[in-house]
């Protein structure tokens, strides 16, 4: 061993503020010494000498910890116990002699205490007779040793053995902690360290029941005595204590540690550690009022109770919970007596509000509502069912207090959290009510429930008003509170949805509509109110299918100011967006427009029935669009919202809007101009909206429809020709073309008799295409591609246009129904010119769609052609070098294996390229490649789409490459990481299921070549074949992998 002085120097340099460059080497050197047989002696030496620095002493304590974790003998444990305890006592004495000067010793003391805690656990995690000795109570041992005179080392062992079992009575215990504040603090700290470490140890060991029992019978009694003594002192000698915040903090920290431990251990040990006395004292401390500090402990105790109610509320017994209920609410659901303690709550809330201590007010809200949630179901049963012994008058008073609390008068989120947290309470109460068995309800229950939840909604309407968001925006410099307020609004939406199941349309939806409709737009509208009402209404209506609810449309129609108010909301939002550039105005106006446009989109089925209202709405939306398409606007969100709304209305009311086609076409032409201020999103969405209307313009046959389409294509083509060099504008115009094509797809199954009667006429018309729209389209695309053919975004949109009808059934007409050959030619031309890494993925995507659409007519030769043309020819080297492209190719083959595997199996490339190359790709390092390749082989081994002929071919081929396949798979599996195991497991399962006998032979040949672990290999083979390809096989594979790689079996 190096000399102690040498080690000390190393430690000092390790902890120096400017460590030397070889710090890692020093660290490793010290770790080696710590783990060596000299570790114990080193630790002792480092802690023994007063002149050594605290860093060195701490390292000594740390060395004890290392020895503790590496040693396995009972003899060593005794030595460790002896050393740690003696040094703890000695250093504690130094600390207690002058706590303020020696406060830096606390770190070392804490480490030694933690070591002793571990020894205490080791001594007690077995039955007593097996233990190195009996050790019941570390605190008592510490007190005994501390109180004894210092002894010579030869007498120490005997004394320690006696002290292990010697107890300290209550009087001596209190006398000890009373003798000095430092000793009091040390006892609290030791107790805290033990239970904290025990809580952590619980997560690693399964059976600590004996240890819990020892703690319960001994340590718990001492610790509670000390804690409760301290809490009582805090109650009665507050003024003297006020100068000692450290001790107070320690007491509360110790209390918290015991609460966490009790909560975890109570389900795992015999008996139950009761903390009721402590809780009673905490409640009294919470209610302590001492001027001038007012409420010195309330905030800390509220936080402690908040944690308990959130995690383990039943730690408090029924009586204590009733007492807390009385304090919080002034009324208990179970008794008629009104608690005087509620006065404290009112004063405390008043104090927090007056002094604007909103953080503590938030903690109080969290604590109170978490507490209420504990008895939510109970309240629900007592309120709404005919359970006996419930005092209804008292219960209704209780609900009244809860409603008042919800209606806390400050701004939600910014100043108060009661209303925010109470959303969950009311939601749970509402769900609880909805789940009650109808037979258990009292006759008056539906009325009572409707009354309560009606009031709740009325309380929340002003709470979610954007006027509150405005206040937050004016106060909050960061966005966090804004997000919290938005979350609050979303939570209220959920509550409204649940409340609807109680209130129904007549008491909720209709009332919201009527409230909006009652506000006369000509006499000064409170738009904040309209917004809040619309916000809730939109959510409720979005859950209905308005076209199937004529009564709801009637209600909407009968409310005269309803639509004008919603349109006013949108108009005002758009105007504010333009007039005021502040962030606040921008956020609020966006919210106005968002709520208004969402509601209009949701009620578009209602607008469909009233052409006047539809016209009014469309006009307003276009005016808004015009006003908000400001090129200097820094955010186009409002424009996007309005455009999205127009698109939704056009989609729903396409037939009713056909008379607007000439006007819309003009607007569209203006919009597509390069100098127009609208965004590209608006251009594309509006083209789509226009497409919807043209799609339903069928009354006069296909010719007029085709004329409109031709006009739009001409506008797009003209725009492209005029601005050929403006890449973004040309791309936007092509995307508009694609949107037009999408809009022309008939939605769902056609039920329009007129359309059905003309179906054959339309099919015939588009097959002949007298206006040559398809040829116009392909010429336009070729023209654009001659300039932008390498640009992947153009390839994407070009493929989208050419492949628009690829997923359409034969009998559906479409103006872009190209022949397969035309589509293939287009893709071949794009492929020959594109950059494979960026362009090929779009082409491959459409290639899959082509195979899917024309699977019955394609031949293996066609598949050979596709593979050669797109993946192996010109792009072959790129595909081989780039894992993403390899994955793309394998995925294309996989899609064919899913669609019609015979195309791939019987092609020439199958044996010359696909099988050998995909075998080589099995040990890939890229997860995506592994996923694709293992999927391929799984489909080869097991595929329900195989014909008999396919099956015969595949059986023969798999039998011949089986050994190689097994070799590659197991090699890859062995060398892969754990998260990729399942990909290979799936393939192994398929092999076990389809080729059981040969696969066993292959495995027996292959596994010994991988690593020398015969038992694991044997076990794997056995388990694989017992599980017969089921999901359990994955576990067998994982176990084999862990064994062969020398890794521990962590449960997964």
């Amino acid at each position, binding site marked *: 061993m190096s000399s102690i002085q040498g080690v000390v120097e190393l430690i000092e340099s390790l902890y120096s503020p400017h460590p030397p460059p070889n710090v890692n080497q020093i660290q490793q050197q010290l770790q080696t010494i710590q783990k060596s047989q000299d570790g114990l002696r080193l630790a002792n030496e480092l802690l023994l000498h007063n002149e050594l620095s605290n860093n060195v002493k701490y390292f000594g304590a740390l060395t004890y910890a290392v020895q503790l974790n590496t040693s396995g003998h009972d003899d060593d444990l005794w030595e460790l116990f002896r050393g740690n305890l003696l040094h703890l006592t000695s250093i504690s004495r130094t600390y207690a002699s002058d706590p303020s000067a020696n406060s830096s010793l606390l770190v070392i003391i804490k480490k030694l205490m933690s070591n002793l805690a571990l020894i205490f656990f080791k001594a007690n995690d077995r039955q007593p007779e097996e233990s190195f000795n009996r050790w019941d109570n570390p605190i008592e041992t510490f007190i005994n040793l501390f109180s004894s005179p210092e002894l010579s080392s030869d007498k120490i062992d005997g004394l320690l053995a006696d002290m292990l079992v010697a107890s300290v009575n209550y009087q001596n215990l209190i006398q000890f902690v009373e003798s000095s504040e430092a000793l009091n603090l040390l006892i609290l700290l030791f107790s805290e360290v033990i239970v904290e470490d025990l809580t952590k140890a619980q*997560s690693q060991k399964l059976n600590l029941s004996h240890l819990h029992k020892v703690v319960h019978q001994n340590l718990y009694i001492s610790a509670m005595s000390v804690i409760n003594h301290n809490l009582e002192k805090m109650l009665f000698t507050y003024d003297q204590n006020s100068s000692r915040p450290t001790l107070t903090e320690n007491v509360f920290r110790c209390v918290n540690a015991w609460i966490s431990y009790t909560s975890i251990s109570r389900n795992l040990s015999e008996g139950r550690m009761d903390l009721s006395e402590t809780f009673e004292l905490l409640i009294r401390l919470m209610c302590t009022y001492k001027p001038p500090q007012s409420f010195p402990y309330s905030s800390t105790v509220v936080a402690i109770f908040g944690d308990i109610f959130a995690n383990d509320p039943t730690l408090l017994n029924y009586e204590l919970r009733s007492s807390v209920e009385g304090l919080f609410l002034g009324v208990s659901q179970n008794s008629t007596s009104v608690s005087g303690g509620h006065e404290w709550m009112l004063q405390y809330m008043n104090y927090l509000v007056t002094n604007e201590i909103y953080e503590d007010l938030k903690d109080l809200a969290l604590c109170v509502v978490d507490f209420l949630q504990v008895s939510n179901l109970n309240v629900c049963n007592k309120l709404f069912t005919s359970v006996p012994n419930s005092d209804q008058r008292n219960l209704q008073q209780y609900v009244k207090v809860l409603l008042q609390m919800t209606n806390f008068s400050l701004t939600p989120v910014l100043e108060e959290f009661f209303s925010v947290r109470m959303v969950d309470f009311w939601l749970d109460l509402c769900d609880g009510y909805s789940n009650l068995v109808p037979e258990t309800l009292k006759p008056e229950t539906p009325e009572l429930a409707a009354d309560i939840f009606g009031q709740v909604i009325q309380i929340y309407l002003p709470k979610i008003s954007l006027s509150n968001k405005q206040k937050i925006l004016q106060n909050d410099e960061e966005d966090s509170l804004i997000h919290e307020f938005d979350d609050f609004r979303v939570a209220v939406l959920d509550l409204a949805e649940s409340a609807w199941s109680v209130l129904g349309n007549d008491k909720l939806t209709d009332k919201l509509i009527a409230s909006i409709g009652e506000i006369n737009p000509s006499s000064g509208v409170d738009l904040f109110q309209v917004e809040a009402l619309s916000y809730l209404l939109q959510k409720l209506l979005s859950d209905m299918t308005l076209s199937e609810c004529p009564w709801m449309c009637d209600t909407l129609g009968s409310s005269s100011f309803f639509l004008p108010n919603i349109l006013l909301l949108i108009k005002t939002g758009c105007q504010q967006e333009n007039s005021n550039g502040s962030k606040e105005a921008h956020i609020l106006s966006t919210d106005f427009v968002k709520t208004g446009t969402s509601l209009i989109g949701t009620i578009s089925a209602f607008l469909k029935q009233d052409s006047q209202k539809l016209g009014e709405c469309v006009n307003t939306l276009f005016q808004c669009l015009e006003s908000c398409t400001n090129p200097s606007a820094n955010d186009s969100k409002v424009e*996007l919202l309005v455009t*999205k709304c127009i698109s939704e209305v056009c989609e729903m009311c396409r037939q009713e809007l056909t008379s607007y086609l000439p006007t819309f076409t003009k607007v569209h032409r203006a919009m597509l101009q390069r100098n127009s201020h609208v965004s590209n999103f608006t251009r594309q969405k509006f083209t789509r909206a226009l497409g919807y209307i043209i799609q339903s313009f069928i009354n006069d046959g296909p010719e007029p429809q085709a004329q409109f389409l031709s006009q739009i294509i001409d506008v797009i083509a003209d725009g492209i020709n005029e601005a050929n060099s403006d890449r973004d504008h040309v791309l936007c115009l092509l995307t508009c073309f694609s949107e037009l094509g999408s809009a022309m797809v008939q939605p769902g199954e056609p039920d329009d008799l007129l359309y059905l009667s003309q179906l054959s006429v339309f099919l015939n018309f588009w097959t002949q295409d007298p206006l040559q729209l398809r040829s116009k389209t392909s010429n336009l695309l070729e023209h654009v591609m001659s300039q932008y053919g390498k640009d992947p975004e153009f390839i994407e949109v070009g493929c989208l246009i050419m492949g628009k009808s690829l997923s359409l059934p034969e009998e559906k007409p479409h103006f872009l129904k190209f022949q397969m050959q035309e589509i293939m030619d287009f893709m071949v031309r794009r492929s020959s010119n594109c950059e494979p890494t960026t362009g090929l993925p779009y082409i491959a995507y459409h290639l899959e769609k082509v195979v899917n659409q024309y699977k019955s007519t394609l031949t293996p030769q066609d598949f050979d052609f596709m593979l050669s043309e797109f993946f192996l020819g010109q792009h072959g080297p790129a595909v081989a070098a780039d894992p993403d492209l390899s994955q793309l190719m394998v995925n294309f083959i996989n899609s064919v294996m899913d669609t019609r595997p015979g195309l791939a199996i019987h092609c020439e490339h199958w044996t010359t390229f696909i099988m050998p190359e995909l075998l080589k790709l099995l040990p890939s390092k890229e997860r995506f490649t592994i996923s694709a390749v293992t999927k391929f082989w799984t489909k080869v081994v097991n595929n329900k789409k195989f014909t008999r002929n396919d099956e015969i071919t595949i059986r023969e081929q798999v039998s011949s490459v089986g050994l190689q396949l097994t070799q590659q798979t197991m090699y890859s599996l062995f060398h892969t990481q*754990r*998260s990729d195991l399942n990909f290979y497991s799936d393939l192994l399962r398929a092999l076990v299921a389809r080729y059981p006998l040969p696969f066993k032979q292959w495995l027996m040949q292959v596994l010994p070549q991988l690593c020398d672990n015969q038992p694991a290999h044997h076990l794997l083979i056995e388990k694989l074949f017992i599980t017969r390809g089921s999901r359990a096989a994955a576990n067998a594979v994982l176990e084999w992998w862990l064994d062969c790689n020398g890794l521990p079996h*962590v449960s997964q």
Partner: protein
Amino acid sequence: MSSSGYYELYRRSTVGATLVDALDTLISDGRIEASLAMRVLDTFDRVVADALRDKTQSKLTFKGHLHTYRFCDDVWTFIIEDCNVKLDQTEDIQGNTVVVDKLRIVACNSKKSGE
């Protein structure tokens, strides 16, 4: 559920699986002991559960046909066919609905056992 009272199911998430891979590598290289890896995973179980409970607000709604439901060992399983999943609170203005053939929901009790 692990002995610490937290589920181990998040270890199968992408972040969990990646953490397990990293720990495997560290153990194989002899840079950490297996016991430390297990402690890290225990901490991961706790932190993920706490973070998902305390720091997330996202919600999604779905509509579809309930094909299967079962409740076994405190675990609910629902299989929903032809499901329309709507993600709330996304900024995706162009539509935020995902349509899936089959949705499997596995739901465990968020409260600790015994409560």
